[in-house]
């Protein structure tokens, strides 16, 4: 039973009119792991998650959640799956304490609402109507509602968007706690640090398709880079000629230089860069040795232009 993946999506397609929100997406989320779905706005993340939650029907392809069909097996799935919608869903006039108490009574072995509110830093707001809470507080009530029934699988659609650093860390602790306790978590996010820190598996989605997946380390790879500042307009081609083969070099923006290699940066590369600079009377400032971040990979794969 636990061999079945938490979620398995095969060639999923969902069209709205002529536009395909999801366009042949395949994805597998392991049991007991945190899977992060990354993608720019409009990439099809929410549509995909809502198909997994049973809110929308797949146009083509198949989706299996805990080995079951999200629509026809909804009755069996609802107690086992916790859902946090991207926004809304909580009646504005209720108080967090009474709302969670009611949701607790929907479940056989719920968490204690007071304990959960405390874990999320909401004890002081338990009796404040939801409409008077800040956006970040409402977000955490929503998160609490998703986990109060002790589900084995939790879908979190942008759980930390709009949260301040303290609330974000409380949310990350909760997700790490769920994972340590053996639950499976699927989350969508724009937050690269979140994915890098929490996720066992990252899926990068764009235009409704999977563009890359793997562990954060696999995605960022071993590639390294050296950055430095110097006077604008250096001869990048000449610099490149002095470096080991398979290196790449560019100036972007003016006065900022980037040297990339496929492997880790080694002392010889740094020596070659500084030797070339010395030879040409260039003072390299703020020289830094870096490895690629998930954000670099993300922007490389999904482009740098703004999306509406």
């Amino acid at each position, binding site marked *: 039973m636990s061999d079945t993946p938490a979620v398995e999506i095969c060639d999923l397609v969902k069209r709205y009119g002529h536009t395909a929100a999801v366009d042949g997406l395949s994805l597998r989320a392991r049991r007991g792991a945190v899977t992060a779905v990354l993608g720019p706005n409009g990439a099809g993340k929410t549509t995909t998650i809502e198909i997994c*939650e*049973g*809110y929308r029907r797949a146009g083509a392809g198949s989706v299996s959640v805990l080995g079951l069909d999200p629509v026809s097996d909804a*009755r069996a799935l*609802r*107690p*086992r*799956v916790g*859902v946090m*919608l991207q*926004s*809304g*869903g*909580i*009646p*504005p*006039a*209720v108080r967090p304490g*009474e*709302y969670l*108490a*009611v*949701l*607790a*009574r*929907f*479940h*056989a*072995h*719920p*968490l*204690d609402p007071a*304990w959960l509110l405390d874990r999320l830093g909401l004890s002081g707001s338990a009796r404040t109507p939801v409409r008077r809470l800040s956006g970040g507080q409402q977000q955490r009530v929503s998160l609490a*509602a998703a986990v109060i*029934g*002790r*589900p*084995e699988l939790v879908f979190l659609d942008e759980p930390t968007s709009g949260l301040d650093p303290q609330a974000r860390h409380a949310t990350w602790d*909760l997700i790490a*706690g*769920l994972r*340590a*306790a*053996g*639950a499976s978590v699927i989350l969508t996010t724009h937050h690269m640090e979140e994915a890098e820190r929490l996720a066992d598996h990252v899926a990068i989605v764009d235009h409704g398709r999977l563009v890359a997946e793997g562990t954060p380390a696999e995605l960022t790879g071993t590639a390294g880079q050296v950055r430095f500042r110097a006077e604008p307009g250096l001869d990048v081609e000449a610099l490149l000629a002095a470096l080991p083969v398979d290196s790449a070099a560019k100036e972007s923006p003016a006065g900022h230089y980037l040297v990339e290699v496929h492997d880790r940066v080694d002392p010889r590369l740094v020596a070659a860069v500084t030797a070339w600079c010395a030879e040409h009377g260039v003072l390299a400032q703020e020289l830094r040795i870096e490895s690629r971040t998930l954000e670099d990979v993300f922007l490389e794969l999904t482009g740098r232009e703004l999306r509406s």
Partner: protein
Amino acid sequence: MRRAPVAEAPVSGWPAPAPGAAPIARMILAQAALEARTLLRNGEQLLLTLIIPVLLLTAFSLDDLVKVGSGQQSRVDFLVPGVLALAVLSTAFTSQAIATGFERRYGVLKRLGSTPLSRGGLIGAKTVTVIAVEAAQAVILLGVGLALGWRPHAGAAAAAWVVLLVLAGTAAFSGLALLLAGTLRAEATLALANLVYLVLLGIGGIIFPLAKFPAAARPVLTLLPSGALSDGLHAVLQHAAGLPARDLAVLVVWAAVGIALAARLFRWE
């Protein structure tokens, strides 16, 4: 009510998953209690369901504002069955339509769709809430009526016929309420539900006796759910009639049509 067992959880760790649904009756009662509490806290809803019916009953009993009878006795005897019909209209129709319309707008219905409470369970909870509120309204309105000198002229089985009429009226108005709430924008539902309340208050035999309308209009007015409900309640409580079969049949047809349409057309988000 038995309390749900609560997980013991150490502060540092997170309890292991232990999914499972509660028994359906516990879910329905918990949801109904939440809806009733929310309604009691809402000023506009209280105005509609309680304050207006009590004010109408009191004011129109004490003074002959609309020529419903020659003395206070005959006035209060006419008004009590009418405001009972108004109570059902306000709770099952107007209040339920507005509340459900905004629940749909705020994504509350969508969110509930992913909890173990099924849609049938949610409708069940709403029904329990409506009937509980109606029971409270009936106790208060009958109490005020008695204080104003109301004496029912009722047959032996009157209580049973009243309950039957009220349940059929509740089903008819609830179907229409969910039809509005599930198909229109929340603002449109709000406006329309209030407008229908006012119109039916006027032509439903609640304040103005149906006998005062032109003879040709009367059969049509008693084909409306409010007219049928108030006509039936007047027959049972004011004229000591037996089961008002025609009025009950009209309500059952409205209920069947309204619920069938709502079931077909209701959009949850």
